[in-house]
């Protein structure tokens, strides 16, 4: 089962940009941007994140989610709260720096890493010594 990424940012442009950047080194990885609110403001959208996760799961992917700031993380955690325990084995939050984390996670997914490996790469701890 391949791992897909959902990039959650307060800014739609930032989410799209991170997807663009990460895709450069991970051509076969499904990358979804979930940026901005439903009406195009700065913020995050429960429904955008939830829809991306639902679609990727329906397509058979495991899903790693990355965020830009604390309130985006709270939105993601709210989405995860609504999933049952079995789904939580397949959908995980990767708590790292968004740009480096997304690139590291996407490359790990590209070379066939499983969900835990992708989530660990997204945390990108090694980048900070």
């Amino acid at each position, binding site marked *: 089962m391949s791992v897909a990424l959902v990039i959650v940012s307060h800014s739609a442009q930032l989410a799209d940009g991170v997807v663009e950047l990460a895709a450069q080194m991970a051509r076969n990885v499904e990358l979804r941007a979930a940026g901005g609110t439903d009406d195009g403001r*700065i913020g995050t959208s429960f429904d955008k994140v939830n829809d991306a996760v639902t679609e990727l799961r329906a397509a058979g992917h495991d899903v790693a989610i990355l965020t830009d700031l*604390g309130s985006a993380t709270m*939105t993601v*955690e*709210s989405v995860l709260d609504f999933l049952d325990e079995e789904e939580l084995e397949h959908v995980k939050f990767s708590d790292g720096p968004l740009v480096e984390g997304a690139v590291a996670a996407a490359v790990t997914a590209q070379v066939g890493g499983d969900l835990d490996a992708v989530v660990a790469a997204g945390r990108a701890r090694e980048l900070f010594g």
Partner: protein
Amino acid sequence: MSDTLSVAWALAWIRGAQAVLAENRETLNDLDRAIGDGDHGENMDRGMKAVVGKLADGAEDVQGVLKVVASTLMSVVGGAAGPLYGTAFLRAAKATEGDVDADGAVAIVAGALEGIVARGKATTGEKTMVDSWSPALDAAKAVAESGGTAAEAFRAAAEAASKGSDDTIPLRASKGRASYLGERSMGHRDPGSLSTTLILKAAADAAEAA
């Protein structure tokens, strides 16, 4: 004034909260501009207007009202207040069954605080809405334990929340984006503590009118 609060109270509470948050939209934006991203008033106003729209046809019971508030705020608000208040109302809904007596009022405030702490991982003294919800719970509990009514419990909660909000002014923020300001966050009221106070005041006002 009735001793137990029904769905009519819950609807009046939420409509009252919407009105008072709309009135205080610019105040909340200004507070948030000082130590955050400046959109708390706008976000709460937008969220509560959507909630009131969803509740136009009423609801079956108090729990039903709280659930609509939770899911709508979570979807519509966009800022940190969405998941925080969304989770607060969701836990409050889960803690509610039937009409609300004084113990029920405590359960609502306790559920809300528990949800906010679970979501935001903040504790008291960090210059967040927890600094209003936590004393509010203590005050509501004291009223219920001494045999007071639900309306009295909500009034005590609102007054304690207001005091808690005042007490955030000198604090240095250690959660959220306000924490990036370090010492410069001191001297400003936390906007979430004010929206919390307004929401609890609306609950008390509606309870006293029920």
